């Protein structure tokens, strides 16, 4: 499709896709991790200064 330059073009798009997927994975997994830690803290009786639930926005 891209002639003799196919390797360079495909590699550029593949590198971009991999890094973007890693960034998306990083924010999604980190969100789940922080929510799980807050749930654990709430289960162990931790309360915010405002008195609201630890997992509450």
């Amino acid at each position, binding site marked *: 499709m*891209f*002639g003799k*330059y*196919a390797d*360079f*073009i495909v*590699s*550029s*798009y593949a*590198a*971009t896709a991999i*890094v*973007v997927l*890693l*960034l*998306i994975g*990083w*924010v*999604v997994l*980190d*969100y789940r991790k*922080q*929510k799980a*830690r*807050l749930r654990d*803290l709430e289960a*162990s009786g*931790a309360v*915010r*200064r405002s008195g609201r639930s*630890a997992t509450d*926005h």
Partner: protein
Amino acid sequence: MKLTELANPTRFLSYAGRLLPWLAGATALALAVGLTQAMLAPDDYQQGATVKIMFVHVPNAWLAMFVWGVMSVASLGTLVWRHPLADVAAKTAAPIGAAFTFLALVTGSLWGRPMWGTYWEWDARLTSMLVLFLMYLGLIALWRAVEDPSRAARAAAVLTLVGAINLPIIKFSVDWWNTLHQPASVMRMGGSALDKAFLIPLLVTAVGFSLLFLTLHLAAMRNEILRRRVRSLQMMQASRAEAA
């Protein structure tokens, strides 16, 4: 909505939660349209099919510099206005900016090999971009090295503002020095030198990548606020246990 309203992390989390699905959808749509247009764009009369690399290389290079600009404004927010979310914004933008800079270097290298005959040349544009990448890594290391976020924030803010000197050097390196890298062809006096067949897909992909940054940044800021909430709850628990 005022900037001061967002100073409240709880309110910020509420806004972020509502905005993120819309931003993610807009990002996916803009990137799908832009990359489809990019694939359908004709070959360049000089560069042939390698011009397709431009549609990922240029947005990544623009964002590499733009993100440092965002971090610089956030650093002013930390040092001058002491906005509570400014250092959260600066800290969470750094890994995303590093990723865009890495991609600009890799895709530039992959474009350079068939066009210049080399993957790398120590010329002003390439070297100043590499310096930007190393500065991002330095900032990430600084944030990780200091445990107290407010102490790390001030040091990182100073370093970010000093590092902003590199932005005009990157931008004007192609004018100030004799480089292999071509001069600006989109944002220049007298208008773009690109034909519409390339310019429109490029601008659409640039909008897509910018929305991607906004989405990832907002999500990463939300995570950082939750991480700090975890930290403060753990400290409160520890001090209660100590008092008991």
